[in-house]
């Protein structure tokens, strides 16, 4: 029981982190139709910028400054790169972000080297806030939860209560109509792209100390973010939240429980082969849940797309 509680907390941390990435991506995608492959690269940039700032000014200025810099960089890339490509269609846009992801990874390696950098949580948060059984919960984790929830509430407020939010929501569903109503859609695009990448940058700032700051961090998280928004339904903020938490808890639970395939197969009525060493299905028999935990979201995505192409909360196909 204790372990379940701990897993719920750990899963929440990971899920909310995913949400910060996927909320920006889903906004960008549903509005501009761009599958932004470089989204996780902005997450990486956030972590590296914050690391650089933290070396001179400490952690807290980095928490504010790094996402802003990332957001500005994102807006600039939209303005001078993506907008140019936009006229050619969606596939070139995708290739552009693909190339951008490669480029950002190389640039990061060029300036910060290829090794993991020592980007750490601030000293004030480096203690165990409480323990459940033998498991300590670090204060920094609670801080991560707090920041993510705060961001979610802000987003929700902006999108539902402000005029800008209304326009964005309208543009999510009917981009053409919004343009026809005289709104400067390219400017909104740039703004949304900037805010989306800033969110990714913020996720990087707070995740860097926890999950490590190294050049491969973008690739590691890259495709799972797509999986999240597709499961949640493109363009749905609530969908992104639900899918993020679902994936967070699913992978955490899968990693925590050693459910073995052999037990399941035997329970179903198969007989365990005596000599396993040369059996053709030996790998299936020895399979355990933690081995496949990180690929479960992909399985879930394929199943959902086959039966419900719009995702859990989506209303329209892209």
């Amino acid at each position: 029981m204790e372990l379940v509680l701990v897993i719920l907390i750990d899963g929440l941390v990971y899920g909310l982190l995913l949400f910060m990435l996927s909320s920006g991506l889903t906004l960008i995608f549903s509005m501009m139709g761009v599958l932004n492959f470089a989204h996780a690269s902005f997450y990486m940039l956030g972590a590296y910028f914050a690391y650089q700032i933290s070396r001179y000014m400490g952690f807290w200025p980095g928490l504010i400054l790094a996402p802003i810099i990332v957001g500005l960089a994102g807006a600039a890339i939209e303005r001078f790169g993506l907008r140019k490509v936009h006229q050619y269609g969606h596939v070139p846009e995708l290739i552009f972000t693909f190339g951008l992801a490669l480029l950002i990874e190389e640039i990061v390696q060029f300036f910060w080297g290829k090794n993991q950098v020592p980007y750490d949580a601030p000293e004030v948060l480096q203690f165990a806030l409480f323990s459940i059984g033998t498991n300590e919960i670090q204060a920094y984790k609670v801080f991560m939860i707090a920041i993510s929830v705060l961001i979610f509430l802000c987003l929700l407020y902006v999108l539902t209560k402000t005029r800008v939010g209304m326009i964005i929501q309208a543009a999510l569903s009917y981009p053409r109509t919004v343009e026809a109503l005289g709104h400067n859609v390219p400017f909104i695009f740039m703004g949304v792209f900037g805010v989306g990448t800033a969110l990714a940058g913020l996720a990087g700032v707070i995740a860097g100390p926890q999950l490590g700051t190294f050049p491969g961090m973008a690739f590691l998280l890259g495709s799972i973010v797509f999986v999240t928004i597709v499961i949640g339904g493109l363009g749905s903020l609530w969908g992104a939240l639900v899918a993020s938490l679902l994936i967070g808890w699913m992978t955490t639970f899968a990693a925590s429980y050693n459910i073995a395939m052999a037990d399941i197969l035997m329970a179903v009525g198969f007989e365990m082969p005596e000599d396993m060493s040369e059996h053709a299905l030996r790998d299936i028999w020895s399979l355990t849940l933690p081995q496949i935990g990180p690929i479960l979201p992909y399985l879930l995505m394929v199943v959902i797309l086959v039966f419900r192409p719009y995702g859990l909360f989506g209303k329209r196909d892209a």
Partner: protein
Amino acid sequence: MIKKTKFGVATALAVSLGASVAFADTVKIAFVDPLSGPFSPTGTNGYAEFQYAAEKLVNDQGGVLEGDMFEIVGFDNKMSPKESLIQVQVAIDQGIRYIAQGNSSGIAHAITDAVNKHNRRNPDDRVLFLNYAAVDPALTNDACNFWHFRFDANADIKMDALTDVMAKDEDLKKVYVIGQDYSFGKSVAAAAVRNLGEKRADVEIVGNELHPIGKVKDFTPYARKIVSSGADAVITGNWGADMVGLGKAIIDAGFDGPIYTYYAASNGITRTFGEQGTGHIYLVSEGAVNPPASDRTAAYVEGFEAKYPDHDITQPRIANTIEMLAKAINEAGTATDVVKVAQALEGMEHDSIWGGKLFMRPDDHQIIQNVDIQEHTSEGLQFYMDASEWGMKLVSEVEMAGMDSPTTCKMKRP
């Protein structure tokens, strides 16, 4: 259509590389490892160590034979088996006779297989494969061949040495084994269970599991399980980001025992663990430099740190590789007839620059050497890692580890 015009121009470029013939007065060694991409830190570090070893241990001593110099030529394999085979072919065409590779046993399998085939099909330009770090036991057992020499202790030998040391700890009751889900992770786990079972039947293995390699974003759940299991010690073969992620998560979750590792040092890992790792991180390796075995060792390391401030001596065996190859070439009296060089290497005994003896076992071409257990610390160090305040210090040493370890190798000799 102008379909293929580019083809010609392009391959002209490709061939210009292959065309240059090896100079008579240099012995070239192809270094085939990742020099770009996510795995390049270990690759570029090893490249620097090879260059330094060739310069200090061979060229500054007057070279081999009659003044022939060693030259290390870097080939970027991008951690891809396919690219490795292409680059090995390019190296062979340049007249290179010695292929050095170490990162990833999977690639080592591909290369040893390709070298074996190449030597059978092209008896006129045979090559040797100097494996300096790929530790899958199979390479010197079922998959062994005459052209492959391993200068690192294999995973089984390292585990044998590690469990020798662990077995002396009377308080050790429960051990957790965790690793990456691939051949190396599996062989570490199997060797840990086997060895602990033989040496300390009373020690309970409270967990033995594999996680997908390079796919886990958050190691916390694994760490929770380890803490909940009440383990006194953790054994892992993880490397790179998987090592840091796992180690940090375990320590963060409140674990206070030792974590025995294969690869938790340098390349940013030592610096990232920092203070947190003290008293937790242990490493099984060879050639500990704190304290240095001799003045010669100290001078060698000092020289390296001065020349490559960004790098560390992470793979001391590279110096052994170069010294033993030079010795073998001198004994064989030729650098081009690799059969003679291989025969000289077989059964060679050598005094390592790191102290202790080296012995290239002729049955399976597995080197036998002292294996050290080192701890991550900031105290009592002469040499630091990652330009930080931390480094690895010798805790205990197993002499000539794995001397009598069995092998299933049945080698076909030319």
